[in-house]
């Protein structure tokens, strides 16, 4: 009896070894097939993205509360932002999201060079975004709109060019939230650029193929979420208080 048990377990070991040799090397043992593995990775990434939504959600919540309380000051602060740069940056980010999905589409067909090309364009668009953001930040520093000891705010005119008095301290609160939200978003962009650059190098070296490209897909999810956050930041900070 003991013998037969031993034989059975030996047979099992042999079968497992045979399966191990036959299966896709990118598939780890705990998953039944590649699709299940990919779904699990994507689910895990989404759980992380939910924490990111809540992280930015805290700042969106603070913005909403103070905007309702200090409406005129927030409108005045919002009107001092350059709508042109905000809109161009939105377009840049949308273009970069398109290049990300095209990179992932290309790797599905094993087109490595095309994938690397799309990733490089994504990284370049990321730098364009940060460059435009730096122009905006420079303007804000020049105008003394950065919260702190040198903060100074006088320009607050309505549609007819009539000056409306606002409390500079309340406007300062708007700019604190502006720099916190766009700064945190820019930090996410920098991380995203690092991810995409690394993945471009790894793809070039042949780490990813039509069978296995999960890191590309997850980095893509991250990039799109950063895009979505900007899609909300643009109207909230630049657009919704043009008329008060």
């Amino acid at each position, binding site marked *: 009896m003991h013998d037969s048990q031993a034989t059975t377990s030996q047979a099992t070991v042999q079968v497992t070894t045979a399966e191990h040799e036959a299966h896709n090397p990118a598939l780890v043992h705990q998953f039944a097939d590649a699709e299940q593995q990919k779904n699990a990775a*994507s689910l895990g990434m989404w759980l992380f993205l939910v924490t990111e939504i809540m992280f930015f959600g805290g700042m969106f919540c603070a913005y909403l509360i103070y905007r309702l309380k200090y409406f005129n000051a927030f409108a005045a602060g919002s009107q001092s932002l350059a709508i042109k740069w905000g809109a161009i940056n939105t377009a840049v980010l949308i273009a970069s999201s398109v290049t990300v999905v095209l990179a992932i589409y290309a790797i599905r067909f094993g087109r490595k060079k095309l994938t690397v090309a799309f990733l490089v364009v994504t990284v370049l668009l990321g730098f364009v975004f940060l460059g435009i953001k730096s122009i905006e930040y420079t303007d804000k520093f020049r105008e003394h709109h950065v919260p702190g000891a040198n903060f100074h705010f006088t320009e607050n005119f309505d549609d007819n060019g009539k000056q409306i008095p606002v409390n500079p301290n309340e406007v300062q609160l708007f700019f604190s939230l502006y720099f916190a939200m766009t700064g945190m978003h820019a930090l996410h962009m920098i991380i995203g650029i690092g991810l995409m650059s690394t993945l471009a190098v790894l793809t070039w070296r042949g780490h990813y193929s039509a069978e296995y490209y999960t890191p590309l897909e997850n980095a893509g999810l991250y990039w799109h979420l950063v895009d979505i956050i900007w899609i909300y930041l643009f109207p909230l900070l630049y657009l919704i208080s043009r008329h008060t």
Partner: protein
Amino acid sequence: MSNEHGTSVKTYLIIGATLLVLTVATTLIAFVNLGPFNPVVALTIATIKALLVILFFMHVKGASEKLTGVVVVSGFFFLAILLTLSLSDYLTRSWW
């Protein structure tokens, strides 16, 4: 050509173009005085754009794993709880 998500290059480009058109639209509408509806229109357009990105670029539409959709919805659901309960608190305070 389409992949396992059923999304083709043509779809990606159409969605990308739609997002750009919506960006131009929301920017232009911001210069039109709609009174209290300016924020409503701006945020509605932003939500449509976010939905397009989530469904088509992040492949939540047509995902083989339905649990992913549940996690996505739960994320925004908890965000809605955060915003609704915070505002219902602040807006009903006597000192507000």
